[in-house]
């Protein structure tokens, strides 16, 4: 048994396992990352992540644990509803990524809300 087969076979087995894991893991759990306009024009099946800016019509209820707002990008907007704790910097004007599904009622039901962390590295040009 040559050295190549002796060491190559286990390596191939491990590589195959890793490939299999990657394939199965990403197949079921991958989501589309799209903008509001894209969601409006053709919504993909399953969960998606939608990035947009929060409009200034935020309404909270249930002691702050439920919120509805409009998320928009340059051309379209959509209503979002979410239950749970909000990210700290959640306020109109910030970019937020909503993860969830567009319901038949036209409202996006978000499972998770991710707000972009305040930029550590963004060079905001200093304005007067």
């Amino acid at each position, binding site marked *: 048994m040559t*050295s190549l087969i*002796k*060491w190559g076979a*286990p*390596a191939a087995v*491990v*590589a195959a*396992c*890793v490939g299999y*894991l*990657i394939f*199965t*893991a*990403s197949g*079921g*759990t*991958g*989501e*589309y*990352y*799209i903008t509001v306009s*894209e969601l409006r024009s053709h919504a*993909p099946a399953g969960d998606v*992540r939608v*990035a947009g800016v929060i409009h200034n019509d935020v309404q*909270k209820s*249930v*002691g*702050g*644990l439920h919120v509805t707002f409009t998320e928009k990008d340059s051309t379209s907007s959509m209503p979002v509803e979410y*239950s*749970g*704790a*909000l*990210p*700290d*910097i*959640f*306020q109109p004007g910030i970019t937020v*990524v909503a*993860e969830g599904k567009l319901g038949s009622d036209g409202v996006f039901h978000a499972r998770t809300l*991710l*707000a*972009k*962390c*305040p*930029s*550590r*590295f*963004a*060079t*905001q040009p*200093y304005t*007067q």
Partner: protein
Amino acid sequence: MILGYLGAGALLAGLVLAGFSMLLSFWSGARESAVFVQVGRRAFYAAAAMVGVAAILLETALLTHDFSLAYVAEHSDLSTPIALVAAGFYGGQEGSLLYWTLILAVLGSASLLASARLGERLAAYAAGIMAAILTFFLFVLAVVASPFELLPITPPDGLGLNPILRDGGMLIHPPVVLAGFASFAIPFAFAAAALLAGRADAGWIRHTRRFALLAWSLQTSGLLLGMWWAYHVLGWGGYWGWDPVENVALMPWLATTAYLHSSQVQEHRGRMRAWNFGLVILAFLLVIFGTFIVRSGVVPSVHTFAISAIGPWFLGFLGLCLVFSAVLLAVRAERLNAAPLPAAPLVSREGAFVLQNLLLLGVVAVVLWGTVLPLVSGMFGTQRVVGAPYYERGAGPLLVALLALMAAGPLLPWRGAGMPTLRALRWPAGAAVLSLLGLAVFGVRSVPALVAFPLAAAAAATAISEYGRAVLRRPRVILRRRRRYGAYLAHVGLVVAAVGIAASQLGQQEKDVTLQPGQQVTVAGYTLTYAGAESRDLEDHTELVATMRFGDQSLEPGRATYALLGGQGLTHVAISTTAWADVYVVLVASSEDGSASFRVLVNPLVSWIWAGGIVIILGVLLGNAGEPSPASELARRRVPITLPA
């Protein structure tokens, strides 16, 4: 203003010196001209001094509130506490690059000083490679993203630090992680120099390993600090989000973990050289790749990074390093193949290290794919992203397999397993069976738990049994073989941390609830009573603080509002930590009717993560403090490790 000019000048001088060092070092190394090798080295030290000067100037500008510098105005203001002003040095794009370059220059100088006697040509090539990396960073700093940019008019006050960064974690976590990233360049330079020169002796290899260990330790600390900061400050109840920023810090760490282990095969049996060179080079390439990914904005991340000008430069540098490394490995490949000792059977310590390498590389592949998927998929259609479930399902089984390897590997002899091995394996096997029974008795039914915890117990049992064996027969060997027993201690620490991670992932419970004063909430058997809330006025913000009674403790989760920053809010989490679980309370909001909304989480065994992390670092320190001199090391080993000249 003058600080700006001085700083820009220092960076420019440093750039010239680094470029000069690079050219001269390569030339003099090829010629083996001792005098010019020394000149090249001195140019590197001088470049490092220039970086030091620039760093001092930037810190001075920050501490004196010199708002004529754009960087100072953008990352501090007059009301920021002085410690955080100082930390602004590494808080922004340009400053963090300068900090990185400073670490690179200082560590590089130290490594050159320590290696000056180990071989003229090798030392020269290593200097040349490190100077090349330094030249690139100084170029970016001097030309593309300068921390010393001046504003046309000096403003009276700065923009200040974002509230989420106004925390002790900000002081510690970034500099450690950045130092970790920077330090991977050193072992890369030494390994590439050895390949370039076609020679590497034992002293050189130990030198490389020592600096790889330093980089690994820094990165371990940085990762742990980051997890601690995310958990205690960011308030979402977790410590790891598989965000690109986290992933790019993890991948070089995984590659270096593999290297630190498989380098032992090179030391003991003179084999796996190609693996080791490849792993060290891979770690550095992953660092540069990671820097490109997170500073260019090409993949979505919760950490905002401006699509800045430095992205393309890092991509170009990555391409350069890739080509250089690939050519080097290809051309020198045949020199790496001569093995003084024949291969061991598969079931041996050598085999275990090969399997370890494969598994760790597998984890790197899983994480890498998840990180670049948005970029790749975006190029061919709609952008796709993956979340935590992908990483858990993809990497989880591999990590569990690694746990099993940690249980069996240390007990396998070099030349192949036999009866004594089977007898030694009874300890981990017994520990696994006992814990499996224990879990079953407690009603645990989750398959991941039933697999992970017994294997963790087995891995711990192996390490402890090795200590036990040593204590019973020859306690002195623990001191003499410090590296090995320090590593066993680190293994124990890793197992403890792994158990903490598994428990807090698998056993987390949470509840969202709105309470009136006096009402209670119970999560996972822990009961909290809401006592009331009050508003407090502080220096730069107002804070709404709720009081939750938990047993005889008072937890005070709060929400801070920074009026000066447009009413931006910040959560202050309240955590009650015991050895068994953390009770984690977030104040979501309060209403005029006196009620308040909370998210309450119970995270089991989180403190084990931090404790385990400390034990890992302890094991590494104890195992490697005061290394024996190269001469005595060489005498101990009977195996020649020199590459053919």
